[in-house]
């Protein structure tokens, strides 16, 4: 591995200033949560930090705290803690379920929510060090190459899919992302946090160098809420989603008041499907409606040469997820 200096900030401000300091010295700095993603990139010389800013030494960033009727989840909470937290499990089930599908127990024991949301793409060209857009180059290799796992929505000029399971769930829950940086703190809705490649192909979210994700905020879960996360994987565990669906239904007895349908594995950002949500709002969810919702979820999909299979897969996954959730006792 290349040499670097590990630093252990004890506050967010210090973390931010360590990054700034490094940058002023002409060095590169990387934030570390659990390091389960970052370290492999460093080993492969894809990320070449001179300084690591180890966020785990900041106290208190790993808590779930009640806030304005909802919760505030520290960005350094581990996925294991998140997935087993009683409030998250009962009120924000989709998030707990998403966290539980990530990789393996070992990764969930160190991997943080912040790191999970901010993990770099798992496009095999990027990870193998091809000089593509994400690696500072000027072309995307997936378009003319192997794009089995790439985007069917929102692609271009890069066709990555957003790899994070929890991000998909967070967007479905309408989470707000708390960003801390040199100019203080801001709170950003999910729709604005993630960035399409056509806005900026070098990064996946709005975080500027020196900024970090300190927490996410979730509004109170209204009565009658049900939510779930379903993930299609290429083997039974330890891989990213081929396609996933995070569905939140706010039910009034048999009737769905409002719904949120967000897809993972299909687009460079967690992909919200407003048409599907509109179809559900105010309706009794029947198999026929669920099918329509599935159709709506894939309307306008633009598959590449080798990923058209994701269209029927997504359709079926959304249909099944919506139906199963609606009929769940």
């Amino acid at each position, binding site marked *: 591995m290349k040499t670097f200096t590990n630093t252990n900030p004890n506050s967010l401000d210090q973390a931010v200033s360590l990054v700034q300091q490094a940058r002023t010295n002409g060095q590169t700095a990387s934030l570390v949560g659990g390091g389960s993603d970052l370290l492999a990139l460093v080993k492969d010389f894809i990320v070449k930090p001179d300084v690591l800013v180890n966020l785990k030494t900041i106290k208190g960033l790993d808590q779930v705290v009640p806030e304005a009727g909802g919760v505030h989840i520290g960005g350094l909470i581990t996925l294991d803690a998140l997935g087993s937290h009683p409030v998250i499990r009962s009120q924000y089930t989709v998030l707990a379920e998403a966290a539980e599908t990530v990789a393996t127990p070992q990764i969930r024991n160190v991997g943080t929510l912040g790191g999970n949301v901010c993990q770099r793409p798992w496009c*095999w060209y990027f990870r*193998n060090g091809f000089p593509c857009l994400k690696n500072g180059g000027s072309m995307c290799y997936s378009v003319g190459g192997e794009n089995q796992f790439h985007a069917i929505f929102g692609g271009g000029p890069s066709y990555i899919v957003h790899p994070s399971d929890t991000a998909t769930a967070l967007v479905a829950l309408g989470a707000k992302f708390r960003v801390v940086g040199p100019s203080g703190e801001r709170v950003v809705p999910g729709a604005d946090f993630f960035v399409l490649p056509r806005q900026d192909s070098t990064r996946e979210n709005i975080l500027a160098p020196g900024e970090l994700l300190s927490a996410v905020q979730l509004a109170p879960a209204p009565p009658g809420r049900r939510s779930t996360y379903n993930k299609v994987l*290429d*083997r039974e*565990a330890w891989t990213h989603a081929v396609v996933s669906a995070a569905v939140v239904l706010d039910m009034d007895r048999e009737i769905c008041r409002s719904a949120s349908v967000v897809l993972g594995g299909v687009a460079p950002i967690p992909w919200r499907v407003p048409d599907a949500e509109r179809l559900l709002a105010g309706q009794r969810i029947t198999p026929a409606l669920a099918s329509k919702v599935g159709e709506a979820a894939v309307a306008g999909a633009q598959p590449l040469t080798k990923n058209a299979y994701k269209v029927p*897969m997504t359709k079926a996954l959304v249909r099944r997820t919506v139906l199963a959730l609606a009929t769940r006792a």
Partner: protein
Amino acid sequence: MSRPSKLTPLKTIGHPTARIDAVERVTGKATYTGDVHLPGMLYARVLRSPHAHARIRQIDASKALALAGVKFVLTHENCSVVWGAGSISGGRQYVDDIKKITRHKRYLFNNPVRFFGEPVAAVAATNRHLAEEAVRLINVDYEVLPFVLDQEAALRPESVKIWPEGNLSPTAKNEMEPEVYRRGNVEEGFRTADFVFEDRYTTTYVHNAQMEPRLCVAGWEGDKLTLYTPTQGTSNCRHDMARDLGIPDEKVRVICKYMGGGFGNKNQNQDADLIAAVLAKETGAPVKLELSRKEDFIGVHGRWPTTQYYKVGVSRDGVLQALQLRGYSGMGPYRKNTGGIGGIELYQCPNVESVTYPVYTNRAVSGNYRAPEFPQGFFGIESMMDDVAYKMKMDPVEFVLKNMTRKSDDEVPYTNYTLEECIRRGAEAFEWKKRWHPPGADPGPIKRGVGMAFMALRSPTGQSSAVIRLDSNGRYTVFVGVTDIGAGAKTTMALIAAEALGVPLSNIEIVWGDTDRCPYSVGESGSRTTDMTGYAVIEAAHDLKRQIAAKGLPKGDNVLIASASPNPTSEGKVRKAFGAHFVEVEVDTELGRVRVLKYLAVQDSGRILNPLTATSQVKGGATQGIGMALHEDLLYDRQTGQPLTTGYYGTRIMTHLDAPEIEVIFIESDDGYGPFGAKCIGEAGIVHAVAAVGNAVFNAIGRRMKDLPITRDKILGALV
């Protein structure tokens, strides 16, 4: 596991016995090569080609050498050692002469480089991070050349010639000819057949992915090399090292105590062994060379990908009349193995023709992986036959029973024959008749289906050696040149010795894995160790018993030493192990997921010496076969010729949650050959597993999956 046995029970053999070294393995005390640390040891790293095919114009290592602690850089400019086992005409890996005459020599560092990942330079430095950094400081100027990845495409005239003579890899006679087998007259057979079917099947490059990546530690004392390396054959490795370095065999000592698997990935010597040896010589210090997981995937070898064209002629009553295979095997740019495609021999048929082309491509090199030429070929032909049965409206099991092999090449008798019993017993235990339904008949959307495949696999006898020493304390020390790759050879040898000597297992000690201490052994490959070295142990035990009878037990400081180097034959008959796998899958026709619900392996491997470890072997093989059927592929980018899916994540190796319960039934027999009638088992679990899964998927969805692996995209693609 159930084990009805018609054999006379033995005392030590045939009972489930924990491995004699199991405690070492569960306490972390077993020493693997990576655990070897020698004083003053340097670390080496290899710079590998970032191109599929390129000529090196210039190498500038000055920046690397300028780093303090960097001791030496090897490149093609200062090292011309030929790696004999790295490219062999005909891929006959155990024939020394061919390694010397082969036309397409593989140097440790070649120019041009012919695949992504081929070594370009190697660095020795005081620590591994430094060596890694130094490798990145070596500047190489490449002239990038065109490349070809596909084995069929490589034979087209417009494809780049990887070697001046072209891309058909030469035979053992150094001729540019395909491998041909003929019996009867296929053209005639097709003319008289009532039905003729044709199809094409493909299989992918599947990596052994053994848990321990290749690595080694090499050190010289004067003119003698000691090499710690995970090799499946210490004797072969020693000889290969000596030949390649131009020194006598006795100047090389190879040590391999514990090894983290291999499945054929660690046969003989590897270029890494030679590179470390040369670096150690140059620097005067021991050198440890460790391959990363990615380097292991692309820098050693995996199963050869194949394209198989079949033509099958059948009579109206479903009897085979003619059988033809034209096959292409992608060998990478260097020939490490035969590139054969097994499977034709599974069927009884008067007219057979098989023509296989081992082809050079600019992919990672192909070589041994557990039953090198079989799982891919068995998948092709047993899928083909399953399809023929379907088209003939026959139950696939009935079709097999009608057409399966009964004599080797329809001519030479087997030493014994239990194939039919394996199939019938399996069909009954699996309740085949109850579970089978016409393909695609399950209404779904999650559809069940069953499949079956069978095997007959060579179980050769041959030469090996053993030495047994008896001291006055009643300790029997057995010296065998085996290494323990995971199949439990050490334990098996101890069991055989205890049985043959008529003493308790606890009186036996095994000395293994060190060429300076142990006699020749064939190596843990080709499912031969138990048969060949085990047989030598029996012979040595007989020798010892004769000595005891003549001289009495040793007293005081005296010892008795017995040895044997037998080379038994099967007296003109062909020795094979037999088996059949039955599998039930569930296919989600909307999400493309395949789950194995039930898996039954019926296996005749002769007498089962240790049911505990034998069962593990079958389970492991079958599970690897399922992985090959459903997941594994080393995918290449066609634009650049670079691999994309190295590693366990990339190639989707089966996890705990993927692995089904594998039920194993042994049908035991004793054909009078081999140690107490034992036959091969190490490879027997995987060879037909792939076909069995493929056939089950067909039965579930009614669509034939002809290209491995059977991934979700292919299933959904077939169903639109």
